[in-house]
């Protein structure tokens, strides 16, 4: 495909300073079962090209699903026309230095290719999982789903860039809803996404999870309400990943700091002067941008500007060091960034996105963290999230919590929520879990940008403990 892309590029007639073509082809199969029956089965194939043109300092982007040479020429012509119209109001004059000429390829690491599992076999497994999830009289609804995605992104430019990346991604979930009288509780696997193959749907492993989820959903019906108090809080990776996403990832995006997102996703409490100075968290906090971690959801070799991807520390021993900004934002701001300019599909321009934003593992075991807690609450699995447009005041809700008294887990709590403000929260970090507690989570639905884009992000996270956090339960 790269070679045909190169030929198509060579045949284009234009007077641009630079032209790039990104061919994006993705097939996503969504398969679901409910209550021991087949559920929704859909597949989506996206196949299109983004023609990107630079003329007199102005980029313009035109997406087309007409993949003929005539279709690409029409897109190129329209892009040049848009360049000429916009140049006089150019926010920043770019040149070809922001489009490096890298070559190479990337392939997701998988044990078993996705196409080795037939739709019928996947459906059979999901049906069996929901039968197991439903195996209690209190369970009123059980569902299991898997979203299997295969993506190929190929890029060629007049500067000589040539690269291809093949991704295999699975997002999956198991959900059980329990009811007794007017009390309703839901427990799930937490929508786990990674670069995976068919091994992600290994039945025996998932059946064990289904048993746990069913029993915990029923257990929540008779659990105590989460108390309202200020206490120590331990967050498991299936909640903490979203805390990192919302309160570290987004405020560090350089395009937010530069004001591009002010009308939609929002601004940031972080200012350019904060880099190298701001104590973002306690000395235990080390946060990395790491697109190289095998199997994490947003690992890759090149971003969509064609910049080679490498690991970099964003926060080191609690001090803010580097932003999440691609080569355009780095050029505009003069701040250090990373290779993170990405687009959601063929029909949208790239911009600063998170990729994998991880907390580096620490020294503590989960048992040690619990033992070191006189009174606290341990929360599992995100169910709600909200944060202000500067990424400061947040509130999160979880599915399942446990009370800790005198270093011991003493009971289950339902409807757990907590709230706080970003910098005080991360400065209250007292323990970071070791490698045994480190888990890779990810979401396919990070929303941002005008026009809007939902993109995949990864967060590999250990268990962490925070001192003096405001927690509370559900409505009375």
């Amino acid at each position, binding site marked *: 495909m790269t070679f045909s892309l190169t030929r198509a590029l060579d045949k284009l007639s234009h007077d641009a300073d630079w032209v790039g073509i990104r061919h994006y082809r993705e097939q996503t199969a969504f398969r679901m079962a409910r209550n021991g029956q087949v559920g929704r089965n859909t597949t989506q194939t996206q196949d299109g090209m983004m023609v990107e043109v630079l003329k007199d300092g102005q980029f313009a982007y035109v997406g087309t699903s007409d993949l003929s040479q005539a279709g690409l020429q029409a897109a190129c012509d329209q892009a040049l026309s848009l360049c000429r119209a916009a140049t006089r109001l150019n926010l920043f004059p770019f040149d070809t230095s922001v489009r490096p000429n890298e070559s190479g390829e990337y392939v997701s690491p998988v044990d078993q290719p996705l196409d080795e599992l037939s739709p*019928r076999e996947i459906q059979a497994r999901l049906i069996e999982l929901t039968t197991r999830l439903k195996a209690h009289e209190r369970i*009123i609804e059980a569902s299991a789903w898997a979203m299997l995605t295969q993506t190929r992104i190929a890029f060629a430019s007049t500067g000589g860039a040539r690269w291809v990346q093949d991704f295999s991604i699975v997002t999956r979930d198991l959900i059980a809803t329990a009811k007794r009288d007017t009390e309703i509780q839901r427990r799930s696997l937490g929508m786990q996404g990674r670069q995976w193959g068919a091994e992600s749907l290994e039945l025996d492993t998932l059946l064990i999870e289904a048993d746990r989820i069913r029993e915990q959903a029923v257990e929540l019906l008779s659990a105590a309400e989460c108390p309202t108090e200020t206490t120590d809080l331990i967050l498991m990776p299936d909640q903490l990943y979203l805390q990192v996403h919302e309160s570290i990832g987004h405020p560090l995006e350089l395009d937010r700091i530069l004001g591009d997102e002010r009308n939609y996703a929002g601004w940031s409490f972080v200012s350019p002067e904060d880099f190298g100075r701001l104590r973002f968290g306690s000395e235990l906090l080390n946060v990395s941008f790491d697109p190289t971690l095998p199997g994490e959801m947003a690992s890759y070799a090149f971003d969509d500007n064609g910049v080679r991807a490498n690991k970099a520390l964003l926060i080191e021993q609690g001090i803010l060091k580097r932003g999440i900004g691609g080569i355009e934002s780095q050029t505009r701001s003069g701040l250090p960034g990373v290779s993170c300019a990405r687009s959601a599909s063929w*029909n949208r321009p790239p911009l600063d996105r998170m990729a994998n934003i991880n907390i580096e593992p620490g020294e503590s075991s989960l048992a040690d963290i619990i033992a070191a807690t006189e009174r606290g609450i341990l929360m599992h699995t995100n169910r709600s999230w909200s944060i202000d447009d500067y990424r400061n005041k947040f509130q999160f809700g979880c599915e399942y919590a446990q009370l800790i008294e005198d270093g011991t887990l003493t009971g289950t709590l339902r409807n757990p929520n907590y709230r706080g403000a970003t910098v005080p929260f991360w400065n209250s970090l007292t323990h970071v879990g070791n490698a045994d507690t480190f888990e890779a989570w990810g979401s396919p639905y990070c929303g941002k940008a005008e026009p809007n884009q939902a993109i995949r992000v990864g967060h590999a996270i250990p268990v962490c403990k925070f001192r003096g956090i405001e927690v509370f339960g559900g409505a009375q």
Partner: protein
Amino acid sequence: MTPWEEVFDEVAELAFSRLGSDEVLNLNFCAEDTRFLRFNRSRVRQVSAVAQATLELELVIGQKHESHTINLSRNSALNRAAVLDTLGTLQAVVPTLPDDPYVSALEHHGTSRVVNTGQLPAPEDVLAFVAAELQDIDLAGLFMAGPVHRANANSLGQRHWFSASSFVFDYSLYSARQKAVKGAYGGADFDPATLRAVIGDSLQALEVMDRERKVLAPGKYRCYLAPAAVHEIMGMLNWHALSAGAHRRGECSLTELVDGTRMLSPKFTLDEDYSLGLSPRFNERGEVFAEKLPLIVDGRLENLFVSSQTAKEYGLPSNFASEDEAPRSPVIATGTLARQDILSELDTGLYLSNLHYLNWSDKTRGRVTGMTRFGCLWVENGEVVGPIADLRFDETLYHLFGTGLLELTDFTESHVEVMTYDQRHVGGKRAPGMLVQDMSFTL
């Protein structure tokens, strides 16, 4: 340029001609030609355009079914190859799947054609306006323009077509102290004079934002929620609030209202009302929803959304709701509060122009949290004092639309959908402002 309607008809005819005698095919089509101008500091950050179409093919063979969505273009040869390839894959896969006991048979629900045209500006017109009139202003936002199309057809002869040409300039303005107000100008016929007036109103509102910021402690406050803030709360109704299926599955956020154990205010009435004209009445099965359906009347539940699948599964009558059983054109009825009386009736409290990032604190009990954003003010004795530092609220829908609701305004404002995830979305909502007592703020 080939009209998208021709593209749709050609692929539909082709696909329907390749069906076996036991096969029924349902098609859903979306298309647009859109130009986007993205602004920061009244300059162009990104400029882009897209010509795109998607076709969803749902093949039904008895109780078995599956759908596959592909991209189309104006290239007939590529379209025909893609459609035949996709249909062939479906014809191979569907027979291998288990029966779905809740699939309801596709039917012929008639034909319809709605085409709303407009006079849209070229990107050059908007750029000229921004260059001439907004260079002393810090503006961020998005201008987009172009036709949007939705269609459905099935192999039983049903066919619906909906087209709307529209533009939206969705923006925010920033003061020297970096406080902001939100504005939008959209429609079918672009008029620079109207855009000038709309931005003029925003600039006037921005003047207040440069006053000293008021920092308020958490607590309960009397509040006026402007229509744009009410639109945000209405958005939470899309998350399973009025879905018959969600209620049966234990996912409903207004369970107690549906069960009849709790009411909203007698002042609160909500309809699904397609007279707004912002979205097609047909759903993804081509079933046509009523022009108007009362959902909540005088604080009591009147109707839930019931899709044909939910109807089959739970033995209910379908009202041809879409598969997600969410509002697509909701309208809250007006009250008696006149525009000129808003500040005096608020007296002392919060004037909330907009809200941001709403989510559940306790979904099954309808408790919502979110943030203030854009143009939120502190008012004392009926006079605006100045902007507030952002606050987090945490309150139930039963209080906001029920026990706390003092009055609704005697006017409404419409919100035209500006979401563009994957494609430009259609639809909108209309709401009055609301005066609410004792709204809880926590952070």
